[in-house]
Every structure is written in structure tokens, then in C-alpha cells.
């Protein structure tokens, strides 16, 4: 197992990956169980950042800069996604007060 040097200290890479996995699961569960649309959006951000952490970890571990580049890329996408998602939410809130995403079920088949 390789180790990563953080501030002069050596730390095993799997800790970072573990943190990333925990963050991702937290985000996923948040998306699944929370009802407030705003919180769901934040949970999605959490998942994205968990992925970013994993990318950066692997990048350091494999001595390959592409992972970090990809993390930057996904941050940009996350920003764009947040803009679009928030804009949709604002528009929905303008029409009516939504506390629960289950209220938005007009597209039921």
C-alpha cells in the first residue's frame, strides 16, 4: 500500500478513499431520503465532492496529473449544475411553495 505525504506526515491512501466513500454514501442517502429540494441539491454536491476527493487521491497515488485535472473539470460541472438546479428551484418556488419534492409529481404516468 502506498502512502501519501500530507504536511510532512505520511498517511495511507486508503483513508482518503474511505473518507470519500463515506461522503459519497452520505450524499446518496441524503438524496434518497431527504424531501426538501434544497437539501437534495446540497447532497448531490456532496457526492460530487466525494468523487473529486477520490480523483485527487488516485492522482497523487499514481503520480498522474490527469486525475487532478478531472477534479477541476468536475468542479466546473458541479458549479454549472448548481446554477441550473437552483434556477429551476427558484422558478418552482415562484409558482408555489414546495417543501416536499413528492409534491412535484405531475409527470406521473
Amino acid at each position: 500500500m502506498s502512502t501519501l505525504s500530507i504536511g510532512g506526515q505520511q498517511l495511507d491512501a486508503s483513508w482518503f478513499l474511505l473518507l470519500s466513500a463515506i461522503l459519497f454514501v452520505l450524499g446518496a442517502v441524503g438524496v434518497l431520503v431527504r424531501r426538501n429540494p434544497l437539501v437534495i441539491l446540497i447532497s448531490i454536491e456532496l457526492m460530487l465532492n466525494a468523487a473529486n476527493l477520490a480523483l485527487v487521491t488516485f492522482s497523487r497515488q499514481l503520480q498522474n496529473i490527469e486525475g487532478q485535472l478531472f477534479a477541476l473539470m468536475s468542479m466546473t460541472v458541479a458549479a454549472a449544475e448548481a446554477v441550473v438546479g437552483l434556477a429551476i428551484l427558484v422558478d418552482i418556488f415562484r409558482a408555489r411553495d414546495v417543501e416536499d419534492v413528492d409534491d412535484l409529481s405531475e409527470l406521473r404516468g
Partner: protein
Amino acid sequence: MSTNPTLALLILLFPALGGLVLAGRGWRLPRVFTVIIGPGVVWASFVCVLALFFGGAQGDYTYWTWIKSGSFEVPFNILIDNLSIFMGLVITGVGGLIITYAVGYMEHEDDASYARFFCYMDIFVLSMLLLVLAGNFIFLIVGWALVGLSSYLLIGFWYQRRSAVVAARKAFVMNVIGDVGMILGTFTLFANFHATTFASVFKALPRADNGAVELAAFLLLVGAIAKSAQLPLHTWLPDAMEGPTPVSALIHAATMVTAGVYLVGRMHPIYDVAVYAHGAVAIVGAVTALFAATIAIVQVDIKRVLAYSTMSQIGYMFLAVGIGAYSAGFFHLLSHAFFKALLFMAAGNVIHAMKDEQDMRKFGGLWGQMRPTSITFLIGSLSLVGVFPLVGFFSKEQILGAAFAKPDDAAVQLLWFIGFVTALITGFYTGRMWWLSFWGKPSPQRPVEHPHEAPPVMLVPVAILAMLATLGGFIQTRALGFGPSVVSDFLDKVVTPQRWEESGVAVGLGVLTMLLGAGLFWYARSLRPWSARLPWAQRLLEHKYYFDEIYDAAFVRPLDWLAGFFQRDVEVPVIDGAVVDTGLITQWTSQRGASLQTGYFRNYVLVFVVGAVIIAVVLLARAFS
């Protein structure tokens, strides 16, 4: 461009222009424009043909290359020679008279129908001129099909009448059978010679395979038979009498139905090589002549009598061109155009005066009341019978004389005998028609007590044709064995000249035929209720030898049954069913699929996450295995 090619093109352009103007604006213009444009363009064409005739024009004028694709090349060319000028004179001259006559005959139509009629007539004249002026097979087919189309449009002119529509459809189908024959014949020729112009095909003939030429000749004959209403594709012509009478006069007597004769004449280099097909032309002609004449004996509709007599006379022309007496056939074409158009138009005068009644048994006694029409009709009738000195005598006896005198061929003598018997029957049925319609006391069932004579616009063309039918014969008195022969001299430059002379015996027989025919014409007067003596024969003839019934049983009803079968058992269950079932299946699956669409965000996310987990597990499992 020099004068002659321009004139040749103008012949076609005038009627085309007339048709276009009348089709586009005719129904909105005042009637006087229709009256001027309709016949006017035909007369303009006539002037062009006359100019070419007197200018002695000859030539194969190529204007541009129409289609070029590999070795297939179709030039836009018009063939001007004595044969096409001769046909052009008949079409535009007799056609002009008939279309002028129609100005009076169609006067009861409303403005739109009036313009439509002259539009169709101009299109017909254009098509017919294209047919005879064509210098290549493609134009010939185009003209050939277009005359079929205009014939269809004109037979069905009164499209509110069911019988007219049915008759038009029948004529069109029969004509298309002929068109297919023509096209296949052209394919055969192209496959062998790789040429579409007449000139190059005829030049290549001597080194051709005889079997292929025979095949092509027979296929072209199918086209000729269908167009000229010869056996066995004749059944459309009597029904075509549903059209207005000027149409019957122009298309179904004077011009279109003689296109078959023209075709055989134009293709004479082919038929001179293809001896079997050439013989078939003569046999078909002779048999049709006799066959149609016998049916004409029992018809009671005046136009149908004329229709059957047209078939019979065209049979004579086929007989003539079939035995190699081309110019005799074309002389009869000319004389037939005169006297048959005359008969139809005079009959039209009667029908017009009788409020569209066509049953001869309901006429009678018109001699005293419609004297000019009666006289012209008598002239036409006697010309049809072939009485000296009318034009019919010279042309018909020349054909019979040529058939009788043809040396070294006993079979042709048999054809002469058929023609001879036909001539006698012609005398009889024509007599019956004339005496029944014009002589005696007026029938009690007559629709009009005091009929009015036709207006001058209808009488003058009839009178001109009557004069032509009276004096026209003297341009060619070959039937008598001496005197001028203008038509033959003119045409023998183009077609194969007749290689033998009529003998003295043939001339004597011709005069005898005339006397017997005229005698039967007279005899028919005293023989009103004649047919009851042979009831079975009358039934046979009244049913026209059951041809319609046979075709009905052999083709129409099986096809109807087949169409019904496909509609009932293929269209509805299979094709229709497949379409309907596709819809039902889509509906069913979409109803099931729609229930997955709950509208709850968490459901979608759950599916998404589960899917992502499954994919991740699969990928991991593959990575570690």
C-alpha cells in the same frame, strides 16, 4: 432555322397552344374566344401542312437531342415525308371541319364544359399530329398514348353519365393493352438495333435476325389492332359512341382509329421483312371487316351502326396494307375520313334535332323535314356502299381489285372473297340504316314532331365533306383501270409501291360488287321486319358474337373475384390487421410502461442508484476475477 423545320414545328405548336390556353383560361373567357381558338388553331396547323405540301418539303428535321444516356439517344426529330404530310392533311383538314361543326353541336353546354370540350379536341389533334409526325419510336409511343388519353377524356366528356364513364374506362384499358404491345415492340427493336429513330432502325433491318423482326412486327401489330378496334381488341369502339358525336366523327372514325393503318404503313420496311406478321395484318383486317359488318345489320342505334361500319372499313384498310397495297389502304383511309366523318356529322344533325335520341326505329320520315341533312347522309351512305362515282367506290374497289389481282397467292383470293361478301353486307346494313332513319312515315315514338334543320355552322362542314365525298374519287380512278392516281403516286415515294396491276377481271368484279351492293341497298328498303326469320342468328348478332360476355367471364369477373379476394382475405386481415395490431401492441406496452412513471423523485433516484451500484459491482467483480 429555315422555313420548313419551323413550319413542321408550328404544326404541333398551334394545337398545343390552343389546348393550353383553353385549359388555363378557357372557362373564364367569353365563349367567343373558345369558338375562335378551338377550331382556329387546327386551321392554322392545316395551313402549315398545306404550305409544306405545296413546298414539296421532305426531310427528317432534328431540333435537338432530347435524351442521351450511353448508347441510348433520342433526338427531338420530326419526320416530314409524303406519308406524314398526307396524314397531317387528313387530320387537320377533316379535323378542322369537324371541330368547326362542333361549335354548333356543343352549343347547349355551359361555358366551362364548352371550353373543356375544345381543349380536349385540341389536345387530341396535337397528339394525333405528334403520332404521325414522329421521327422516332419514343415520340410515336408518346403520341400513341396521348391519343388514347384524349380519346378517354372525350368519351367520358359527359362524366355525369355512368355509361359514358364506363365506356371511357373500357376504351382506355383496351388502348393500354395496345400501348404495351407498342412499347414491347419498340424494346425488341431497340434491343436488336440500339436505335430509336425510324431512319436508323430501317437502315439496320437487312442485317437483322428475322425472328426478332417478326416478334417486333407482331408486337407493333397488337398496338395497331387495339388502336384501330380490330379483332379481338375491338369491343371498346361501339361503346365509345357514348361520347359527343363530333368526337365519334373525328376520333372514332376519321383519325385515331386509322392510326393502326398508319403504323403498318410507316413500319412498311419491317412488315416487308416480317412476312408472317404482314400476313396476320391482312387476315385480321379481312376477318374484322366481315365480322363487324354482320353485327351492323342488327344494331338499332344509328351511331353504333356507324361504329361497326367503321371497324369494318378499317378492316379493309388493314387488308390492303396487309397484302402490300399500301397506297390503296391509305386512299381508303382518306376516302373513309371523308364519308364517315360526313355520316357521323349528318347523324349528329339528326340526333341534335331529335333531342339526343339515337334509336333509328324512332326516327323515320326525315327526308321531307331535314332535306339537306338527308341528302348529305345519302351521299355518305352511298359512298360507304361504294357506288360510282362517289369516293368510296374508287377506294374500296381498288383494295378489292388489288386483293383479287395479287399474283402467286391463292390465300389472298380468299381474303378478296371475304372483302367481297363484306361489301354486299355493307350495302345491306347501310340501306337498312338509311331507309329506317329517313324514309317512310315518321315513327309514332319520335321525340320531336317537327324537327329543325341544323344551323349553318353545322351544315357547311357537312356540305364540304359531301362535296369531297362526291368528287374526291376522281383524284384516283385506278379502280377502273385508267385515269389519274394522285394518292398512289404521292405515297409510293414513301411506302413500298404495289408490285402488280389490277387485271381487267378485277375491274369487272369491282363494278359487279358495286351493282350488287347498291342492289342490296335498295332491297333493304322493302325488308323491314326481316330478322324474325332467323331468331338464333339475330340473337347472336345482337349480342355481338358474345365478345363482351366472353371477356366479362374470362377477364373482368376473375379479376373482380381476385380483387375481392385480396380485399377480403389479404388487405383486411393481413395488411390492415398488421397496422392495427402494431397500434394495439404499442398502446398495451405503453400503458404498462406508464405505471413505472410514478412522478416521485425518490423512485427515480432509487432506480438510478441501484443501477449504478449494480454496474459498480459488476465492474469490480470483473476487475478482481
